[in-house]
């Protein structure tokens, strides 16, 4: 069949349309905000409508990207490296400010975001947003690794919540042996080869008094004997002894699903899990869940990996001042409170942890404050992702292969990380 001239023209016009940028309505300024879909989308819509009402003539366009940090990173960096002037404000994972600052993608916010203003936020996320003495993002909410446990099961066998990792393994062994439920697993966490593996393993390594690398000396410390000891513990005590091997393919949703089905005794996750685990609609263990800081190795302090999301402004934005107004509004006390009320994610502003209304709805915020203040950011560096990929390969190989040669694997990772860190030495001192 031959297409008529008219049809062909229509098709052509349709194709051309796809390439045309829809012109902004006269007198209207568009602000494009690239984010992922919030659990409390309605609250976001309300907040955005509020901003538009206060700023007549401004339209905020939400561009919703993938939820996974790695995939969202692809989307945002794609726009930034193409110097896309359409994107004004973007969501930033806590590990990106260093990279975005060094690459010249994120706008330094010092002229808008003064040091006294920064002091109103928790210290750890502010530190994560600083690079070379300047600030590149405003924290919206913070996450920190937490230990969730089944209060009812521990009580049934008269066990106290564990303070150390060996204690946790010991408790799990006792409960598993007596429950005789083939479905039940001792420890459900995120051990798949992806960014979450770094968060989980960093907690084991650092709570044994070791570190991933030395930020000052630009040297890897991943092959230190304490770091290796922690990795060996995960392989032999966690994976081989109290967990089933499926956890090696788990990200947050799968590991949480197991816990709320009542099939895990201990569970490591971010604070959002609290809301889910205690929601009777979604969780079979609602009301039986305890939450506490993660255990540590004997003689060392507990460590929670700092997570969380910030708002950054693109250096290529056509409306940086307006973009700032939007960021300021979205990270204001009121907005953070609304979001915290709806999602249960920890706000980034320190005084909200003493807010009566918030504490009434989420009493655990009071207890959680310590964890957020103490949470360890992953080391800041523009080469975070290459380092992360090397460590992901190392950790996954070390724990997924039952008879892995940890010394050998750690040596290789150590050498590879040093090679990446060496790139930073070529940097001209400002």
């Amino acid at each position, binding site marked *: 069949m031959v297409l008529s001239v008219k049809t062909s023209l229509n098709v052509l016009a349709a194709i051309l349309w796809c390439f045309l940028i829809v012109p902004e309505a006269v007198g209207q300024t568009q602000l494009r905000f690239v984010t992922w879909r919030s659990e409390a989308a309605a609250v976001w819509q309300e907040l955005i409508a509020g901003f538009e009402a206060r700023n007549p003539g401004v339209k905020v366009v939400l561009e919703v990207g993938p939820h996974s940090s*790695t995939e969202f*990173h*692809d989307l945002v*960096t*794609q726009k930034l*490296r193409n110097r896309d002037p359409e994107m004004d404000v973007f969501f930033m994972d806590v590990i990106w400010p260093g*990279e975005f600052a*060094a*690459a*010249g993608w994120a706008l330094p916010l010092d002229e808008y975001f003064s040091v006294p203003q920064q002091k109103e936020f928790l210290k750890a996320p502010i530190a994560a947003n600083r690079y070379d003495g300047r600030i590149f993002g405003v924290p919206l909410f913070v996450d920190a690794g937490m230990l969730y446990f089944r209060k009812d099961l521990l009580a049934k066998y008269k066990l106290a919540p564990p303070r150390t990792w060996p204690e946790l393994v010991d408790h799990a062994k006792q409960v598993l042996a007596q429950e005789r439920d*083939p*479905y039940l697993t001792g420890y459900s966490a995120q051990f*798949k*080869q*992806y960014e979450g593996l770094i968060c989980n393993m960093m907690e084991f390594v650092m709570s044994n008094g070791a570190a991933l690398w030395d930020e000052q000396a630009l040297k890897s410390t991943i092959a230190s004997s304490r770091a290796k000891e922690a990795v060996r513990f995960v392989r032999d005590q966690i994976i081989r002894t109290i967990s*089933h*091997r*499926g*956890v*090696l*393919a*788990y990200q947050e949703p*799968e590991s949480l699903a*197991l816990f709320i089905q009542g*099939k895990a005794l201990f569970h490591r996750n971010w604070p959002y899990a609290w809301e889910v685990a205690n929601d009777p609609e979604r969780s079979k263990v609602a009301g039986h869940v305890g939450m506490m800081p993660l255990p540590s190795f004997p003689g060392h302090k507990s460590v929670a990996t700092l997570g969380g999301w910030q708002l950054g402004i693109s250096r290529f934005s056509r409306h940086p001042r307006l973009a700032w107004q939007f960021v300021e509004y979205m990270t204001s006390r009121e907005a953070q409170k609304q979001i915290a009320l709806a999602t249960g994610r920890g706000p980034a502003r320190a005084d909200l942890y003493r807010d009566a209304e918030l504490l009434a709805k989420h009493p655990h915020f009071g207890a959680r404050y310590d964890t957020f203040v103490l949470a360890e950011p992953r080391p800041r560096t*523009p*080469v975070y*992702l*290459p380092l992360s*990929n090397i460590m*992901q*390969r190392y950790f*996954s*190989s070390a724990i*997924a*292969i039952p008879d*892995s040669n940890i010394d050998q694997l750690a040596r*290789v990772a150590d050498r590879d990380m040093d090679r990446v860190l060496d*790139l*930073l030495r*070529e*940097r*001209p001192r400002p």
Partner: protein
Amino acid sequence: MKSAKDPAWRFLAPSFLFVALFSLYPIIDSLRLSLYRMILTLPWLGQKFVGWDNYQDLFSDPVAYQSLLTSMTFVALTTPIEVLLGLGMALVLNESFGGRGWLRAVVLVPWAIPTVVASQMWRFIFNDRYGLFNFVLFGDATDRYWAPLAEPGLALMSIMVADVWKTSSFAALIVLAGLQGIPRELYEAASIDGAGAWQKFRHITLPLLKPALLLALLFRTIDALKVFDLVFVMTQGGPADTTNVLQFYGYKKSFAEGMIGYGSTIAVAVFLLSLILSLLYIRLLGARLLAKEQPA
């Protein structure tokens, strides 16, 4: 030699421009970039010409070797299975029976589903607790359940299963086209000469189907060498890096880590590999086709 005024030139120009813009330019630019050290997140390093350094790094990179091996295993196991299954399906679909049109459409469904959706589906199927895979295999004996995507020894195989499921029907499509090009009279003549079904298949179908089979192999090989989406959705290269195929490794270098120079080097290596394999197949294919076109 024809002159440039020949209208053929003008008719070909748009396609040539298209190919130049969307194929030639990216290939040449990747080649150029592979000779530079360029790291997006370290702009002060600039774009430094380093000659063959990236290639030397590639040859001494154990992760790259492992990825190459993973990709080659993937190609070597999936393509023959897919073409054989495709042949089987095509033979069935070429017979006339009631509902054939319907069945032909159904067979194409896996191929028509976007790979990302199919990968997500297979990720659920292989889930260690609620996956269909375990239920079919072990039913209620949950203590025997496997975690295919968590086991270094099984993860790549799981991805291969998903790939075979997804693309065998594509091979079938090509083979079916080949089957329909075989003249009926040959079979009739063979029947008169008293040939059985097997003899007809062995001496008529198979030889005449060779170009189509080679074509299916060619397409599948190149596609399998470039497998990316299944890995991206199902395993992200893990566990223990066992599903880190070359294309995924290159993607991580270029897009996640911002190492444009080294990432381009990997892309060029994948390109050269597919080129060599394609040339091999085309030699096999081309020789036959050319031989047929020779005027008697």
